[in-house]
């Protein structure tokens, strides 16, 4: 008999603030965190708006002895570390990270019983440090313009004393995707199974599915689970735009009207940065310590779509939903709300809507959709963890938050602008597609 898995802590960092209370309040009130991108001069990019986390540093979320390590954390890692800390506090856990001396006395769980699955993106090297280093590796100038010559690999290698030596020795470790999980495991002392799933927007839900399986099979009693990413850097914004994922924002300063999922006029989303990390526990050990329980993770499923950068083809997405429903042992009629990616990207929206129609049939229009891209943007690998955290909070509050939507979404879906309202929520489906075609779905269940 597989063990049951429950959610006992929620941690989030996003454009609406740090911690779930800030995110939830913002969603209920229908506020947006999408404004001008300030992390870099965005005037040369087509998409100049973003959901940025203002005034955030991981320094405030690590034990004193670990503050030096923040220097080797890319922004993605900082977001994960912050979200993990908020989740630990919410779950009422004592870990190596909550005691200033990092001692093992009084820990809620033994380190080898704690795992960590944090989805991540491909982290781009900081343009500032890389460009400064590359500028020391220019070859002989041809023609003369005062700017220096073209890049020389020979100089980069070390000829003449410049080049790669200008990068900090630990440069690579700032950008390895597994460093999100590695820092969190080091800070909080998780010596059990740990993984880093990198499937774009699906990374977070795939991680939650994997954590559930790990706990079910008894390989750990608790897992940090979710994802985090920030693409708010030169390479990140460029790649997302080249892939057709972002709305061209012109001179606008409010990003929320651009995000209108399932609307025929949707033309890309707004990039957000963020992390959502949940504490998943075996029900038996969570109950034994008297933990508060948000919801049970009742089902998980995955599915691969036909290749296509926009996630075209809904067969894989439908498979993910059906697999999750089967795993939960329920039919679609039991689902009381849906928290999809709702990316406002035409191909992905169409795949998502098609998969939901295939799974739910005519009943789809009566199931409330919870979406919040207009509030916090597309947080890419951070999205799934945030979706699951919001879904768990919906169940705990028995409420769906307000929806911000400036357009007219597909009538088959209950996704138009609406105020917050109370709702009887027993089962909630969280689902996502991804650039690259990996789809994932998780069914959460009320334990009340």
């Amino acid at each position, binding site marked *: 008999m597989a063990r049951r898995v429950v959610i006992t802590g929620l941690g989030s960092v996003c454009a609406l603030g740090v911690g779930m209370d800030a995110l939830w309040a913002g969603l209920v009130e229908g506020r947006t965190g999408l404004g001008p991108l300030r992390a870099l001069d965005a005037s040369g990019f087509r998409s100049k708006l973003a959901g940025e986390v203002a005034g955030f540093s991981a320094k405030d979320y690590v034990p004193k002895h670990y503050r030096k390590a923040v220097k080797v954390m890319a922004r993605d890692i900082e977001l994960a570390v912050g979200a993990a800390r908020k989740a630990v506090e919410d779950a009422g856990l004592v870990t190596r990270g909550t005691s200033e001396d990092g001692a093992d006395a009084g820990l809620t769980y033994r380190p080898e019983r704690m795992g960590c699955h944090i989805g991540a993106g491909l982290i781009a090297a900081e343009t500032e440090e890389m460009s400064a280093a590359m500028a020391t590796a220019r070859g002989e100038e041809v023609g003369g313009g005062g700017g220096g010559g073209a890049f020389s690999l020979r100089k*980069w290698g070390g000829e003449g004393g410049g080049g790669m030596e200008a990068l900090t020795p630990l440069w690579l470790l700032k950008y390895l995707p597994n460093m999100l999980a590695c820092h969190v495991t080091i800070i909080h002392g998780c010596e059990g199974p740990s993984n880093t799933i990198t499937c774009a927007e699906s990374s977070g839900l795939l991680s939650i599915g994997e954590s559930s399986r790990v706990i079910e099979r008894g390989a750990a009693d608790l897992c940090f689970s979710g994802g985090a990413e920030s693409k708010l850097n030169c390479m990140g914004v460029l790649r997302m735009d080249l892939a057709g994922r972002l709305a061209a924002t012109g001179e606008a300063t409010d990003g929320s009207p651009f995000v209108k999922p399932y609307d025929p006029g949707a033309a890309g989303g707004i990039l957000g940065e963020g992390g959502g990390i949940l504490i998943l526990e075996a029900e038996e050990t969570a109950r034994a310590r008297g933990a508060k329980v948000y919801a049970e993770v009742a089902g998980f499923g995955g599915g691969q779509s036909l290749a296509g950068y926009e996630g075209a083809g809904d067969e894989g997405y439908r498979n993910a939903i059906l697999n999750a429903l089967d795993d939960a042992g329920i039919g679609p009629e039991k689902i009381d709300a849906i928290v999809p990616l709702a990316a406002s990207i035409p191909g992905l929206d169409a795949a998502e809507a098609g998969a939901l129609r295939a799974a739910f049939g005519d009943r789809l229009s009566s199931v409330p959709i919870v979406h919040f891209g207009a509030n916090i943007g597309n947080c890419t690998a951070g999205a799934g963890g945030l979706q699951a955290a919001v879904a768990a909070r919906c169940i705990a509050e028995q409420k769906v938050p307000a929806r911000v939507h400036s357009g007219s979404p597909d009538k088959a879906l209950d996704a138009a602008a609406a105020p917050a309202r109370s709702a009887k929520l027993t089962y909630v489906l969280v689902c996502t597609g*991804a650039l690259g*075609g990996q789809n994932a779905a998780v069914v959460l269940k009320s334990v009340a």
Partner: protein
Amino acid sequence: MSARVVITGMGWVTPLGCDLESVWAKLLRGQSAVGRVSRFDASTFKTNFAAEVKGFRLEDHLGEKAAAHAHAGLNTQFALAAAMQAWKQSGLGAHARSGKLVSRRFGMYLGAGEGQLDFDNFASTNLAGWDGAARKVDARRWAEAAYRNMDAVREVEQEPNMCLSHVAELLGCRGPASNCMTACAASTQAVGEAFELLRHGDADVMIAGGAHTMIHPLGMTGFIRLTAMSRRVDDPEHAARPFDQTRDGFVMGEGAGMVVLETLEHAMSRGATPLCEVVGFGSTADAFRITDIQPDGKGGGGAMMDACRQAGISPREPGADGRPRVHYISAHGTGTKENDSIETKAVKLVFGPLAPKVPFSSVKSMLGHLIQAAGAVELITCVQAIRTGWIPATINLKTPDPACDLDHVPNQARDLNPAGGVDLCLSNSFGFGGQNDTIAVKRFVA
């Protein structure tokens, strides 16, 4: 009752070649694949050698289907070639053509690395954006250059989940799909999690493995700055020397390894012949430091211990024939000072007094370190050991290190058939940052 899981197909692309049997023969001969970097001008790099895949052509593996993947990155092309070999060996093609393979029950779990950076355009864009007078990036200028220089497809194809997309297109997987990046542990972890998904009943068939190349300017740069690679530029062929006292770092390799995993029930129902059974998976985190391995070997030891436990064996107890129950360990064995001595400690932690009797070698001495692809390729060597009764050597091991004093199978492959063959192997992979994974594979007995 969890499902039993077997391997029914294997394929690889390695610096020693791209087919199962010829590469295995070279490994048993102790051949090194290491030489000067030919792919770019690395002549001034502190490490200017690597184990490159030579003469690779996707059409040799995919035939006319190669054209549909011509825009894929090199790592993805390696993945496709290895997956196709595994697919052919499994015999699933006929099964799929007759409509009996349920695509929703056919998944993938890869530990593929990121694609190769479009380095020339990256460099020229960074220089165009650099304001030398202000000593900072002018992001507006950078963006103008980037939109001019960078190609949308080349950028998207660097995403680490692109191998999944291409393999799905080639083979028709529509079931659960994941990709993980736990550095050097990735493809072992991928095979392990695929094994667990099958055991749990999430799928009937999984393609699992990894693909990676970091033999490009920025990939080499990262490891040179970390001083993790050998700098024996005067003698590249003998630079990869795991467990040797004079070792000075790993040698970069590249390639892919893929296996077809199936539930035993599914394999039997179609009359397939299992190549071996997967019987254990262990996964731990060091939770120690981002730059150093936990010095007692607890992390790697825990992964091996968990894999043995799942396989139903007590590693410290010999079998009825007096031999240790584990007949071979494929070491992570990178050739860095730290890894090899701590991994040796970990084996001693797990096997106690039996440790010196368990052959424990590193094929990285010949293939170099295939980074995220390493684990899957090394797992395949374990299956080959079971199938042939031979185990590969650690070459270039001339000066034993007192801190690495186990049976590293120095310099000469060994025939274990006279001792009764090879029944059970462990394959270790430990990632930078502390993720440790071990898989146990066993001779298949119905």
